[in-house]
């Protein structure tokens, strides 16, 4: 038998990269349809009245949020873990048949889970809890997939050659543990068919918590889904990919450790800001507000650390579109983690709550930070897993500017729409009568909804360019190992 040198094995990474792209297109396409539905209600029945059940806003909305958060983002995180995990622990998946089997099993179960989720949500089977819409049989499947993810993480750590765990690994572990805890507690539910002795649908369940308690657990979960899906694993990615692509050591490794523990402690307490001016105890609301403001420190700690990593090397931002994605991603992270705490301040929240400003905030985080970072990660990984140069640098740069314009149009329109909405809802005359009816706000907001839809469309167009670039990379010029040390090789 030929004695081949040991290499990293990217089989599972490739599978999840493929899934990231497919679910990204699906999730963002649905998002764009939703945005046009809000601007032009006729789009709700675009396939005719007969199919309106499947094309209306309320049926599609959870499909959008779940496919971008738990489809596109999680697949990107999994792809990145199976890539970064091997490299910073200096151990190959090829060294463990068991871990390779677990990785593949995880992927195929995940794929089955995706199909089950898409079908059930299209059929209208939902718990109606935001970002936790999946009914109990799917929840059980998700727990199994998550346990497999845990085995992959700790299994790889168990056979590592590098004694210390790189900061990204700490973030991946935190992401794994955080989601495990949050998901289990928020999805405690009673299947009504079994509890009632055979009445109703077998798929239906009710939450084990009721009323205000249910809301509290839901938003402890909901906000921390942002923490442990949209933040923690994405920070793990930038801590690896930016230094590696730029060839620069992290500006301050000590700051990365400090920010990690700060983020871990503070984030879990901030969820109460979703329930300001609701029926939860006042001190919980205050705590949510204060911890949200404190959250600026660890978030900016990581983001500034990344920007300072480029110290003395800023010409790379100009010359490499891949670095541009990461530096702008980090900047959007700073922007979003400043905007969020501002919205969590009680007096600001009185205007912002329930308005489009919140939607704008979520999207400058997800499009500008999460989306940019995941695409950058795939751009960095693609030449290394396919052993080929990136197909087109100019296509990547064009995509960057189209998507940046899309994000800017998205959040600026939602700022204006949200604040206008909040002010109009509160406006009253000297007798306390409301100055505007709901439809008055709809009329005023219409242009901004159209701008938002165009912004979203631009982002989707950019994403399709990204998918095409990666697809063409698979058959681009083969590269030698030495070309892959730092800056990714790119065709014109």
């Amino acid at each position, binding site marked *: 038998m030929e004695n081949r040198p040991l290499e990293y094995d990217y089989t599972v990474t490739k599978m999840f990269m493929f899934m990231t792209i497919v679910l990204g297109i699906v999730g963002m396409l649905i998002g764009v349809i939703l945005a046009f539905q809000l601007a032009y209600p006729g789009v709700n029945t675009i396939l005719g009245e007969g199919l309106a059940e499947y094309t209306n806003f309320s049926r599609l909305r959870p499909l959008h949020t779940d496919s971008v958060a738990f489809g596109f983002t999680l697949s990107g995180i999994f792809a990145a873990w199976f890539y970064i995990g091997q*490299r910073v622990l200096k151990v190959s998946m090829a060294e463990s048949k068991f871990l390779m089997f677990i990785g593949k099993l995880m992927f195929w179960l995940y794929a089955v889970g995706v199909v089950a989720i898409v079908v059930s949500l299209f059929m209208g089977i939902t718990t109606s809890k935001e970002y936790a819409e999946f009914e109990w049989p799917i929840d059980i499947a998700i727990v199994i997939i998550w346990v497999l993810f845990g085995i992959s993480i700790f299994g790889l750590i168990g056979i590592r*050659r*590098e004694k210390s765990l790189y900061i990204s690994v700490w973030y991946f572990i935190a992401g794994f543990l955080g989601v495990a805890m949050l998901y289990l507690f928020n999805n405690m539910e009673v299947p009504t068919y079994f509890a009632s002795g055979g009445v109703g649908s077998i798929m239906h369940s009710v939450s084990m918590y009721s009323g205000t308690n249910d809301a509290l657990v839901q938003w402890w979960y909901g906000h921390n889904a942002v923490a442990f899906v949209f933040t923690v694993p994405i920070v793990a990615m930038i801590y690896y990919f930016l*230094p*590696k692509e730029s060839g620069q050591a992290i500006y301050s*490794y000590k700051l990365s*450790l*400090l920010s990690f523990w700060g983020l871990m402690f503070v984030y879990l307490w901030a969820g109460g800001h979703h329930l300001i001016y609701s029926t939860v105890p006042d001190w919980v609301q205050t705590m949510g507000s204060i911890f949200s403001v404190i959250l600026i420190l660890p978030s900016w700690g990581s983001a500034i650390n990344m920007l300072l990593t480029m110290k003395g090397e800023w010409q790379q931002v100009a010359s490499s579109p891949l670095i541009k994605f990461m530096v702008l991603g980090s900047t959007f992270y700073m922007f979003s983690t400043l905007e969020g705490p501002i919205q969590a301040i009680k007096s600001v929240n009185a205007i912002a709550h329930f308005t489009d400003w919140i939607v704008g905030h979520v999207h400058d985080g997800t499009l500008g930070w999460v989306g940019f970072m995941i695409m950058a990660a795939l751009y960095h990984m693609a030449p290394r897993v396919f052993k080929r140069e990136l197909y087109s640098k100019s296509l990547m740069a064009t995509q960057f500017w189209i998507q940046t314009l899309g994000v800017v149009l998205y959040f600026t329109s939602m700022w204006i729409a949200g604040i206008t909405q909040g002010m109009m809802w509160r406006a009253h005359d000297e007798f306390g009568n409301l100055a505007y009816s709901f439809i008055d706000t709809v009329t005023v907001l219409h242009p901004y909804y159209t701008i938002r839809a165009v912004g979203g469309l631009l982002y989707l167009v950019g994403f399709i360019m990204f998918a095409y670039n990666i697809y063409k990379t698979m058959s681009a010029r083969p590269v030698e190992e030495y070309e892959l040390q730092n800056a990714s090789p790119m065709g014109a």
Partner: protein
Amino acid sequence: MSIAELQAYGYVGAMVVLVFISYGYAYHLYTKKKDASGKDYEEYSNMALRDDITDTPVSARSEHKKK
């Protein structure tokens, strides 16, 4: 003293303790500069930069076991 006041004092107290822990950790990191094994924290950045499977680990697990 009402339960609400107790909560408020407890909350402020917890904040003070946590601020001390957090600043204490920062002080520890920046004055010691090195971890328990005597390695400068900043050297760990190399785990990402020198991550080929043939690269020498920053702190090899096998060396640690020998000790």
